[in-house]
């Protein structure tokens, strides 16, 4: 399991959870970043954040937020417990 902040670029990931306050989790979900979604961290941005691809959509997310979002490699089964 990795956080999106430390995830390798260009690798499809299965999003697990976001340890953020509910309104922020909900907003991420509305933008497509919700548990079970396949996302790809595409590149680093000028502010230290990342551009995250969710399907055809692109979302710029700050590093501090990405550190709270965990994911596993899409090909690998999600860890239990």
């Amino acid at each position, binding site marked *: 399991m990795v956080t999106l902040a430390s995830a390798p670029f260009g690798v499809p990931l299965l999003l697990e959870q976001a340890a953020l*306050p*509910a*309104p*922020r*989790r*909900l*907003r*991420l*979900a*509305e*933008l*497509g970043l*919700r548990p079970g979604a396949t996302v790809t961290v*595409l*590149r*680093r*941005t*000028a*502010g*230290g*954040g990342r*551009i995250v691809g*969710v*399907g*055809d*959509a*692109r*979302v*710029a*997310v*700050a590093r*501090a*937020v990405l550190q709270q979002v965990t994911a596993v490699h899409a090909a690998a089964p999600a860890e239990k417990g």
Partner: protein
Amino acid sequence: MTTTTRTVTRPSVPSCHGDGGGEIVRDGRPVVALVGSPNVGKSSVFNTVTGARRSVGNWAGTSVEVGSGSWRSGGLDAAVVDLPGAYSLDPLSPDEELTRDLLVRPDRAELPDVVVVVVSAADLARTLYLAAQVLEQPLRVVLAVTMGDVATRRGIDVDHAALSLALGVPVVAIDPRRGRVDGLAEAVEEALRTPVPARSLRPCGCDCAPGCSCTCCAAGATADAKADPTAGPAGDAAHLAGDAAHPDGGADGLDGDDELAVADRRFARIAAAVEVATSRRGSARADWTDRVDRVATHPVAGPLLFLSVMWAVFQLTTRVAAPVQGFLDDLVSGPVSDGARWLLSAVGLGGSWVEGLVVDGVIAGVGMLLTFVPLMAIMFALLALLEDSGYMARAAVVTDRVMRAVGLPGRAFLPLVVGFGCNVPAVSATRVLPDARQRLLTVLLVPFTSCSARLTVYVLVASTFFGAHAGDVVFGMYVLSIVLVVVAGLLLRTTLLRSLGQEDLVLDLPRYQRPALRLLGAVTWTRLSAFLRTAGGIIVATVVVVWALSAIQIGERAQEPVRSSAYGRLSTAIAPVFTPAGFGDWHAAGALTVGFVAKEAVVSSWAQTYATAEPADLHQPGGLGASLRGDFERSSGGHTTAAVLAFLVFLLGYTPCAATLAAQRREIGGRWTLVGVGLQLGLAWSVAVAVFQVGRLIA
């Protein structure tokens, strides 16, 4: 379709205290509300169906207030309201709150008659979330699907009939960017003929047992919500706000996990609908948006590209407009003024005070403004091009770090960018920010963004004193504007606003799109005509006031009559304040005093006072420039360049206009507005003095 507009909503003024709300005021016609996520083309739909020219842009926050107009097409005659873009009915900012408050109300009589939810075919799953929430309300809903062309190019086919069947609402495919909204009016008309649904399917995530008495279950069990005040929207409002009656809820009602469970069911419903209604040819792959973004959001190349783009905008603006400006200047100061004098002489008013007011006042002032029309048109068109292309969202990403240095999120850059056009809408645009303290800080910083009215003065002064380098000086003013925003932000953050909220960047990046010429033209014209209307009115009023003050002689008559007038005496009294900055001349002081009302009037008041003092000058091209050069040289003791730069710095930093103050007072109250005025005057004066004193030593 019609361009007639009338007020059908009365939104209360969202403030930094987050009290956004509003109500729909009926005029007997059905009310149609347009809602949608940011970047789906909602304002384009509004403009197309009403013939209005609301500002549109391919970035979140384009609409932060409710727009209203009339929609007449075929048998439809409705009032239409354009609500601020929202990702959902769970608001995180005042503009989203305004949308929620107008759609989720206990009293059905206050609800719109039909809601058109605009969604993007290219991003159906995400943009349907708001639609799913609206469908849970007792509202007639029509789904308008935009961006079909973008979806097709990306290999996505949408089966609109299947989508309609899956969601249980009429679905219409439209292309508002090209003015195609066929079928939408008919669908709205048809919806108006159907009864208002008592309530729709709500994916309540409560796992309630049969007979549960919680508010949402009670509301769901009621067939006719009108008969039960707790039913329908009241139940939903409770759900959205937190339902204290629910047995699974905490002390504050539904907790975050409950809301997320409800949201998950909505997403599942949407996913099922998208599954049956879309098909994909091939797999998603990097397209030109990704390729451009590799540069536009790159840690090093991104900021360089941003600076290059801004530099190009101001170079193009000043260089392309210069020849046309010269032509118009000659036209106004020559044939137009001469013609007016001839006409006035013909009716026996030659040499009278009327000639002075009309020729040296109104024609000189308004004429000077008109010479800036090409310049403003070019700048507005270029900014519209950047907005419509989708680049502005990338600009917010690359400036995020700079914004964060002053305690603001990257999203705060968006209202600040608007400020480079005009500070007044920029102050309103701060409503896209969720945190009240961050909104307060942004409102206080907006006046330091260099609005287009200031550009007219920069260009005149820079052309007069810096010749071929005028474009560089103007660009430098915009860079300095950003520096002042940062400096003022740091000052406020370390003094009055120490406890700022922290909101990290989460920003949807719209796909780049080829700007539509029709939209660019409409937006440019809207902004240009608004500028001319505002500036024209201000200039005529100011010219009359300045002329009247100039006509009143106080004390002994000076060699220059204007100097001993009320205007001259007042300006002379203020001038010493600017002596340490090198421009303690009464002409400059008078123009800056007038500029406190509006920067549009600075150039006209200069033209007016110099024309009154030295009437022969405006008969010759460059007469105003020669007067300015002489006065700046005198007031600076020969350090003209340093004094001119100091003047430009002061002009950039001090209070932009009375309208901005009114907008600030509306958003943050009178006390903070006064704090802002003090900050602007203090900072502008200090930096101007520093520029002159340092410049005097260097030169």
